[in-house]
């Protein structure tokens, strides 16, 4: 049980000028499930490996509990790590794999066996204890890797994409199991994934990284509702948020093609302070309504439907801005959630309106969220 603290932690790999992790500040509470998420190469694994002691910390510091671990070797950090490829020892049985850490720290055999058995029971692995890892399925290997971490009873669990080698269905199942297990054990957990759905469903809080820089750390809901910048807005959510650049005219934002949206006084002030007449307007697929031909007005925009994705409980329309004169916008895809019982047909022209108050505004210059 311990709090984990990254304080301006920085890693620059030898031979590169750009830090892989740049002054990362994270304060992870005792017992919290924190997910690190971001696109490939953003520094998630590096951040985790710095905490594990497998990667040097070139600047700043890292603490586990009250202890500064910045320069401690991995074995003195009291952590357990689950690797993406599980890293099970091929020459040891499942039981030996799970008890390995206890054997290293010379826990007596009886207690070792008891703890291994307990974890095996928890993870439904009892019948496999005598097998070698190669005689297990992917899902079973994954559970052994989890078991190996649990048996250790460490201060912190570190997991680097532990589900990415499972097939889609098993991944969803295991996702909830891992989250439930963590709640039950109450062990502080840092979990790396590139899958934002995994991040949103598992994390107490989610930290979004890009190019080694922390973009935002918050609860899944707040990340979704109030993304701090355009990157987070586009990264979190599936299907992703629609983002389009608008021109500011008077008190309104105007889309190429003439659609207008009113801006609040706060937004206008922020834009004036920045001295720009451009603004990025974002809206979630569910923040859009389809309106009939008769109801079209200056707040609606026409869309040519290219694809309709019917999922049963939901349906999503993918289309192109039909009236856009700006060639860049013509290339954009707009996504809208539509009534699954009466979805529009492919090739149709429909009118969409952003539900008033549901738009999110970002600076075109800095990408930062603007007040509304």
């Amino acid at each position: 049980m311990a709090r984990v603290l990254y304080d301006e932690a920085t890693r620059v790999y030898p031979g590169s000028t750009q830090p892989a992790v740049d002054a990362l500040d994270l304060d992870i509470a005792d017992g919290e499930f924190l997910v690190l998420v971001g696109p490939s190469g953003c520094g998630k694994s590096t951040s985790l490996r710095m905490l594990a002691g497998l990667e040097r910390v070139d600047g700043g510091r890292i603490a586990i509990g009250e202890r500064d671990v910045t320069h401690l070797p991995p074995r003195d950090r009291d952590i357990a790590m689950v690797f993406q490829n599980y890293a099970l020892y091929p020459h040891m049985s499942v039981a030996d794999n799970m008890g390995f850490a206890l054997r290293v720290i010379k826990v007596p055999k009886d207690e070792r066996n008891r703890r291994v058995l307990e974890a095996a029971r928890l993870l439904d692995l009892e019948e496999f204890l005598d097998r070698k890892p190669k005689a297990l399925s992917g899902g079973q290997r994954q559970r052994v890797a989890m078991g190996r971490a649990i048996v250790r009873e460490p201060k912190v669990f570190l997991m680097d994409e532990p589900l990415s080698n499972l097939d889609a269905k098993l991944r969803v199942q295991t996702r909830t199991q891992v989250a439930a297990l963590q709640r039950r054990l109450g062990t502080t957990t840092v979990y790396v994934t590139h899958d934002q759905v995994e991040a949103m469903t598992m994390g107490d809080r989610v930290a979004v990284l890009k190019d080694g820089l922390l973009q935002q750390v918050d609860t899944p809901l707040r990340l979704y509702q109030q993304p701090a910048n355009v990157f987070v807005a586009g990264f979190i959510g599936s299907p992703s948020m629609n983002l389009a650049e608008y021109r500011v005219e008077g008190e309104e934002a105007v889309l190429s093609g003439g659609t207008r949206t009113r801006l609040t006084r706060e937004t206008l002030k922020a834009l004036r302070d920045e001295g720009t007449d451009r603004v990025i307007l974002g809206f979630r697929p569910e923040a859009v309504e389809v309106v009939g031909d008769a109801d079209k007005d200056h707040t609606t925009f026409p869309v040519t439907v290219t694809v309709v994705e019917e999922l049963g409980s939901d349906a999503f329309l993918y289309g192109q801005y039909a009236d856009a004169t700006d060639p860049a916008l013509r290339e954009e895809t707009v996504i809208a959630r539509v009534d699954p019982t009466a979805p529009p047909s492919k090739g149709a022209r429909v009118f969409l309106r952003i539900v008033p108050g549901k738009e999110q505004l970002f600076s075109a210059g800095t990408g930062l969220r603007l007040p509304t």
Partner: protein
Amino acid sequence: MSTSMTPRSSVPRQAGPDQAVRGNGHGILAAPPGMPQSPLEESSRRSRWVVGILLAVALLWTLVPLLWMLLSSFKNRTDVTSATPQVLFAPTLDNYRNLFTGSNNLGPYIWHSVLAAGISALLAVCLGALAGYGLARTQMRGKKHLAFWIISTRMAPIAAVVVPLFLIFRGLGLIDSIPGLVLAYLTFNLPFAIWLMSAFFAEVPASLEESALVAGCTRWQAFRTVILPLTKSGLVTTFVLCLVFAWNDYAFAVVFSGPNSQTLPIAASQLVTQTGIDWGQLTAIGTIVVVPMMLAGLAVRRWLVTGLTLGAVTGE
């Protein structure tokens, strides 16, 4: 080392002796026998025959001289030198008996060979494993060049190092001593062992030792409990190959050894005298030289096969 001698009992008979040659090494996965005959099947059958015949020729080329040596070592003086090759003859142990009796007993030679080759192979494997592990895991720049430099010292002809080594050994009083021979053999075995072992270690995923480090191991513990057991076939392969190289050495032994350290190949050469060659005893020594290495190879062939193909390091 003739591992191709081993029977392939698990292989279907129709498949012929060329399993490993077909389909980029995945011969076992090739189409099962008894499939309908297609033109393709037909031509692959023919090529299988060709490969089979070539292999048989190669096998004869390797085995016949060895077999002839073995037979000759049991012949008496007239049979051995007979102008018409004798295949059927009355076997005798005279050649062996003569080797171990008389003034020039073979016993010490065998002992010297065992000591020099065994110790140097053992040292080569131990040091080679440590250095090879370091080489496999280091991130330093120019690592490739370092690895190549190490193995390139193995490529230098022995004749090039004999003289300087002789001068050094004389200065250190290592001439005519087992430690001297062990050191001499290390000069060619160690680079080879480092290079081979580093290839084996490179095959072991780094996450395995990282996992051990996180679990509480020191680097040494991780190496000993996780990495070494996984490279067992590499260790065995390296040991056997180093043993064979050292065991067969003549060039170093003839320069550095004396009465206290002469090895088997030297004993063989001493039978070639100005008064003639004792073919019977020579083939007997030859047999004594070859058979132990052959048996060693057979005993560890399971490891050798996986080791020589650099496969199965992770125990799959």
